[in-house]
């Protein structure tokens, strides 16, 4: 499944990284503690989180994640958006909760 399919289906709001929307999504990771994300998320995962700090971009870049979805309408820091634009990391916002996003991604067939 391509990242743009996920973005369209879930009506995500794209904040940065439009050039990489054709990336394949290998699975989903959900979490807010960046230490755990760094340990457990896998390359190609789309990452659902509340964490809006700019460090999320470095984590996504380090792990080659396909994109980041900030859930629940959390306030995203402008530094994070700017950093994602520079690093060309797809960064999305959604008003859906983490629970709803995870459920819908699972229902779309992303089950790892």
């Amino acid at each position, binding site marked *: 499944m391509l990242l743009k399919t996920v973005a369209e289906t879930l009506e995500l709001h794209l904040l940065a990284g439009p050039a990489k929307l054709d990336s394949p999504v290998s699975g989903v990771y959900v979490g807010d503690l960046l230490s755990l994300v760094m340990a457990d998320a896998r390359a190609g995962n789309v990452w659902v989180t509340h964490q809006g*700090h700019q460090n999320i971009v*470095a984590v996504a870049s380090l792990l080659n994640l396909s994109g980041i979805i900030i859930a629940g309408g959390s306030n995203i820091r402008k530094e994070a958006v700017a950093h994602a634009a520079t690093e060309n990391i797809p960064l999305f916002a959604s008003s859906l909760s983490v629970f709803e996003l995870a459920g819908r991604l699972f229902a779309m067939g992303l089950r790892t």
Partner: protein
Amino acid sequence: MLSWLKADLHVHTALSPCAEAEMTPRAIVEEAVALGIRLLAVTDHQTSANTAACRLAARGTGVTVIPGIEVQTREDVHLVCLLPDEAQMADFATLIESTLPPNLTGAGKSMASVSLTADEVCREAARRQGLAIAAHVERPFFSLFANLGFIPAGMQIAALEIGTVTDPAAFYRKHPDAALRPLVVSSDAHFLSSMQKSRYSYFYVAEPVTLQEVAKALRREDGRQAKIDS
């Protein structure tokens, strides 16, 4: 003249809901005197309301109390923020209070996060001639490394606080990005007996000791130094 002072820069009073009622300003100062601690920072969760009482209790004892507060940032990172005097402390505490969720009171307030990021809290402390220390950085929660993975670029963090049982060399091996940052050991005491530790921080500073002296020691400026028991 410079001399080595034994320090504990992270102690809670009974004002923190998680601390024991025995943590009165007088009892804390008496315990510090008994343990030979000369430099004490009182750091309750999201409030500095007991720092003045602790400073009063310390008069004439040889213990210097630095006003402080333990802030829980937007990312649930705990930062020990130290301010140079009561006026700057009050100003900083007002900012912290104003960035907490408005609907909470009492214990809820001390457990909630401010809307400021960790970077912003450090910057606001520095703006008031204060400094921020990342609290209990080896813990798997409420810590800079657990929550944010690594030290954010450009963050004005003066030191990293470890607990007594953490081996400093092992910590540096695990977090190479921390290698240039000074470590301090603090008790994070919530009850009196936990102020007694097997490892302490020491500061080689001029007396009467001020926060500026502590900051210089952490930066190793003007002959000032900081060390921890090995």
